[in-house]
């Protein structure tokens, strides 16, 4: 290793001194004990890295600042394309600044960091000898952040490498992870650790999205080209999130960064898409994206008098703008709109029209105050609406629903001292729920409700010692419907053991007011209803224990076990009539249920090299008990899956990339027929042979398994980087079982097994310009 070049201390350049007394007072009020501890101040260290000889800006330079007074205080970052690096939230003091890049001699400088901003430029000397010492620091810093259990971050590149039908889908990509399963091949609904899709909070850049599906769940609403990554909390999530019993999926959209007009265009057998980004003024960047199916010409071509083919399309549009101030301020605005439209004209008297979609608007402002405060404010609007019309032999039926969520959020992060960070936030959400049902020109249900929800959290992230991290938090909630006040404590503890092992423990209490009313398998007609004062909100208590072993950067092994206790859970009451006199929680749901889920997840990940991938295994148990269901006896929900295996393999060889995904799961639970009986229907005097149900979900479909394959090749397309992809979904065309239906015509019970998707090939191409 070359000896580091040692620089001399340079006078710092300070700018923009500001006061944050107001915010300090707020945090003092929140913590209640702030006066006992001297305040440490935090600052931003930034600068440009250049080549000494040529003066060119250098990217990918690892810059790590180590506080001389306490070498546990380390921050690392990498320089961008313009050579600029940023180290945020540094404690004020004197640092050793280590800068390294392959092909250059590692440089060590001493820098005095003052608040709010210190600029220090680094000049690198080219060297033939490669060093990687600083990488170790960077890696350690990263590992210490990994002490929160049950959280997985999947990057865009990894998402794009996963096999899919047509194009990258972030939610379907998550279904390859242990502990996560899908309702069916055509559903983006996530069943995580024994919880239903409504128990998972789906956020896009921290804004909730209520029905993130296109094409009845075949695709999610997220355009893969515009997604930067997905963070999944499978359970025991921290206090900064709330509102769901089980898990959190936070889809992070790409922030515009390019100084020039760049873009990505993609074409698959189902959709075409385009994403553009560029610069706006000195400090602004924008991004635009659009995606649309182009099935109509094909559908029109095959439609004729003898062949009734519906008309269908979906589209979505994304727009984003980011403004970055010199003092670290950042303003972001994003917009999303997506719609699905299905029209099926059967004849003059009969047709079907389904329309649904999401709209999301959000704007946020981030500011770093002088005294170690990072603040973030946002205003968001998220709306889901569906409008469905059916006309059968001139009889019109209309059903529509809408959820509007207008939220105002304010978050504060404060670096208490070198080893402790406090976060606090307030979130106020005003909702509008509408559900309307009309039959034969007569309104049957006209439900409108406007509750609001206010929550606040406080979170203490404390580095107790070398490799020990304790995160405690509490979330307080008030829900107007029923005037509920709830307190939700959260805790997680991580301990690094040696360099390679980590032990993690986490738990918390969670409540849920909003309930999804969902049809089986499909995701189109789903709607949300709040739990009003006729029922108690659902509650879960979660505990997670995990161990990780990471012997090198190449491999990572993890084992986690979890237990979730559920109370006051609800289930949609299929016995409710179509025109209930009361459209409240008690009438729509079976209430006061209890349940539990428990399991063990094993995960092995190879992250480096030409061949990468992971293998996951889950052993899971889930049970529910409702007084009104299954005779009051405990039963497994249909997504109780005993064994679940996921394997992902990616192999990159030159311009070619090969991928394979394997999924195996215990067969879905279903309720079998246990007897036949006959009763005359008093309304039409017809005798009907009926099936008597056995114990709820006491039988199993055949095990589910499939293999997906993908091949892609990079090439140049008129001077631009391009890639074509060929994908096989369900490569051996196993017709996995979806659900069972019994037919009792001719007095015999004929079970019919509906199958899921066969082999589906798809081809696509994308160009980056």
């Amino acid at each position, binding site marked *: 290793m070359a000896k580091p070049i040692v620089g001399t201390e340079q006078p710092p350049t300070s700018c923009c001194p500001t006061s944050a007394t107001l915010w300090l007072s707020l945090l003092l009020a929140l913590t209640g004990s702030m006066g006992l501890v001297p305040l440490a101040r935090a600052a931003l260290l930034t600068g440009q890295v250049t080549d000494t000889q040529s003066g060119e800006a250098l990217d990918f330079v690892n810059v790590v600042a180590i506080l001389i007074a306490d070498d546990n205080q380390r921050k690392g970052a990498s320089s961008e394309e313009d050579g600029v690096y940023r180290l945020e939230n540094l404690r004020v003091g004197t640092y050793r600044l280590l800068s390294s890049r392959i092909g250059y001699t590692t440089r060590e400088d001493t820098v005095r960091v003052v608040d709010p901003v210190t600029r220090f430029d680094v000049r690198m000397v080219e060297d033939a000898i490669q060093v990687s010492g600083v990488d170790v620091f960077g890696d350690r810093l990263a590992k210490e952040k990994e002490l929160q259990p049950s959280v997985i971050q999947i990057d865009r590149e990894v998402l794009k490498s996963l096999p899919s039908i047509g194009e990258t889908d972030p939610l379907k990509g998550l279904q390859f992870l242990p502990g996560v399963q899908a309702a069916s091949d055509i559903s983006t609904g996530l069943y995580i650790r024994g919880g239903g899709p409504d128990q998972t909070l789906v956020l896009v850049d921290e804004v909730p999205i209520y029905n993130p599906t296109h094409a009845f769940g075949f695709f999610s609403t997220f355009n893969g080209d515009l997604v930067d990554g997905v963070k999944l909390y499978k359970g025991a999530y921290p206090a900064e999130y709330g509102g769901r019993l089980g898990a959190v999926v936070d889809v992070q959209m790409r922030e515009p960064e390019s100084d020039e007009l760049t873009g990505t265009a993609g074409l698959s057998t189902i959709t075409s898409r385009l994403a553009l980004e560029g610069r706006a003024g000195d400090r602004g960047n924008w991004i635009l994206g659009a995606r649309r199916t182009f099935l109509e010409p094909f559908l029109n071509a095959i439609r004729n008098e003898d062949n009734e083919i519906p008309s269908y399309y979906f589209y979505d549009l994304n727009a984003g703008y980011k403004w970055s101030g010199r003092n670290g301020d950042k303003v972001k605005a994003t917009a999303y709109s997506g719609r699905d439209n299905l029209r099926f004209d059967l004849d003059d008297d009969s047709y079907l029209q389904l329309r649904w979609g999401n709209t999301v608007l959000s704007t946020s402002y981030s500011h770093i105050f002088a005294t170690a405060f990072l603040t973030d404010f946002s205003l968001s609007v998220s709306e889901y609406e569906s409008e469905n019309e059916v006309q059968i032999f001139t009889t019109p039926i209309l059903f529509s629903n809408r959820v509007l969520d207008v939220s105002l959020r304010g978050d504060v992060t404060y670096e208490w001292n070198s080893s402790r960070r406090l976060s606090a936030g307030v979130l106020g959400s005003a909702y509008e729920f509408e559900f309307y049902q009309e039959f034969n*020109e007569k309104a049957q249900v006209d439900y409108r409700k406007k509750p609001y929800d206010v929550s606040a959290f406080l979170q203490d992230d404390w580095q107790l010692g070398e490799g020990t991290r304790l995160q405690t938090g509490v979330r307080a909630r008030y829900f107007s419907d029923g005037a509920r006040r709830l307190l939700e404590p959260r805790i997680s503890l991580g301990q690094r053991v040696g360099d390679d092992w980590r032990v993690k423990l986490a738990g918390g209490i969670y409540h849920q007011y909003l309930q999804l009313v969902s049809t089986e398998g499909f995701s189109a007609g789903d709607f949300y209803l709040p739990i009003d004062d006729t029922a108690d909100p659902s509650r879960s208590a979660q505990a997670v224990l995990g161990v990780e072993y990471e012997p090198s950067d190449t491999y990572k092994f993890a084992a986690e076990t979890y237990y979730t206790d559920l109370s006051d859970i609800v289930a949609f009451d299929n*016995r409710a009539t179509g025109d209930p006199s009361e459209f409240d929680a008690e009438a729509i749901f079976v209430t006061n249920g209890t349940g539990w889920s428990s399991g063990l997840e094993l995960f092995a990940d190879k992250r480096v090299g030409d061949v990468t991938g992971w293998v996951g295994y889950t052993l899971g148990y889930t049970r529910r008990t409702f007084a009104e269901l299954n005779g009051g006896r405990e039963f497994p929900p249909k997504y109780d899956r005993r064994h679940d295996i996921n394997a992902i393999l990616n*192999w990159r060889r030159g311009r070619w990339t090969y991928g394979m995904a394997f999924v195996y799961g215990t067969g879905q639970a279903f309720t079998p027929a246990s007897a036949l*009986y006959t009763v005359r229907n008093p309304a039409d005097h017809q005798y009907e042979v009926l099936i008597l149900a056995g114990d709820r979900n006491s039988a199993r479909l055949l095990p589910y398994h499939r293999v997906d394959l993908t091949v892609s090749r990079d090439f140049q397309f008129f001077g631009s980087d391009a890639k074509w992809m060929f994908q096989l979904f369900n490569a051996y065309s196993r017709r996995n*079982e979806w659900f069972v239906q019994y037919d009792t015509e001719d007095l015999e019970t004929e079970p019919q097994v509906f199958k899921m998707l066969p082999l589906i090939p798809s081809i696509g191409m994308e160009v980056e310009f």
Partner: protein
Amino acid sequence: MRAHGDHRGGRRVLRMPTGTPIPIRIPTRSLDVCGFVVGALVLLGLASCSTDRDPNDLLVPRDVGVLTIDAVLTVSKPFPPMRISRTGSPSEPFDVGDVLRADDIAEIRIRNDDSSVIVRYTYDTAGNSGFWVPTSGDSQYRVEPDTRYELIVKTEAAELLRATTITPPPFHVEDWVILDEAGQEVVRQLTTFDDVGDPAEVFRANEIVYATGLLEARFDRPDVPAFEVGIFSLDLGSDYVIDPDFFDEEDFESLDRVGSSPPIESNDGTLRLPWFAIFFEGRYSIKIYAMDQNWYDLARSAPGFGDGSPGFGGQAGDDFERPIFHVEGGIGLFGSTSVDSIGFDVQPRP
């Protein structure tokens, strides 16, 4: 935030909390292409087993031989014949004629709360219809409204089946009207059986052109859980009144001349007849039943019972649950109802 990775040209890239990548060069070992292909083929071979299966694997016979009662009392009518059978195995064809007859049952009786009315049943040996009928001495009794009746069945094998029903109040539709297409204005008042003594006159007076306007019943809502509508095409040889483009011959043949609705709460005291319930021209009888709790609970909880069958997912789906029977020692329906009806004649569209 944890570090996470991607690959750029075979180079491992870690992402730091700031989101910026740190390149790390790490030697990697390539997998031989043959190994990859062989591995994939082996996996395919292992995995591509058939999903064909014996359908009987999807049946779990268990509740076989359970007593099943079938009787619905109608207010102001004589006590009805009743049928008692046993459940059969789902893996065998069901024999609808296999009912409990004279040798199987020791006693059947229905009594009201104060036992002032006790209706004893006897097997219809004369007709051997499979039904049990009130004894000749008790056939004069009529079902009273708002009355609690208890059914007791004792078999020769000493099984005891017990059920109760509370009969609805009398039910009468005040107005049968035809509304305009938008369902706003009354364009015509229909003639009822109460208005005209001769039923034939009612059908002549109530001629309606198919899909013209909306037929609505208006009534003072009695205190019952819900209503069901039964529709009966009376002219068995009449032509179809529909001609949908998307129907083939089999679809036409599957159309029934009788049908019923799911339970409807009808909280505003009105019910509208959907035109999709009518397939044939000619005379129709429509009956509206005020349901007791037992019938209502069975109709809403038994998949496949009536036309209110479950939607997507079928009988074995989320709503496949043991119905609410309100029967001790067995299953089935011992319910009650009060009913009103009207007749009309559907004419084809010109």
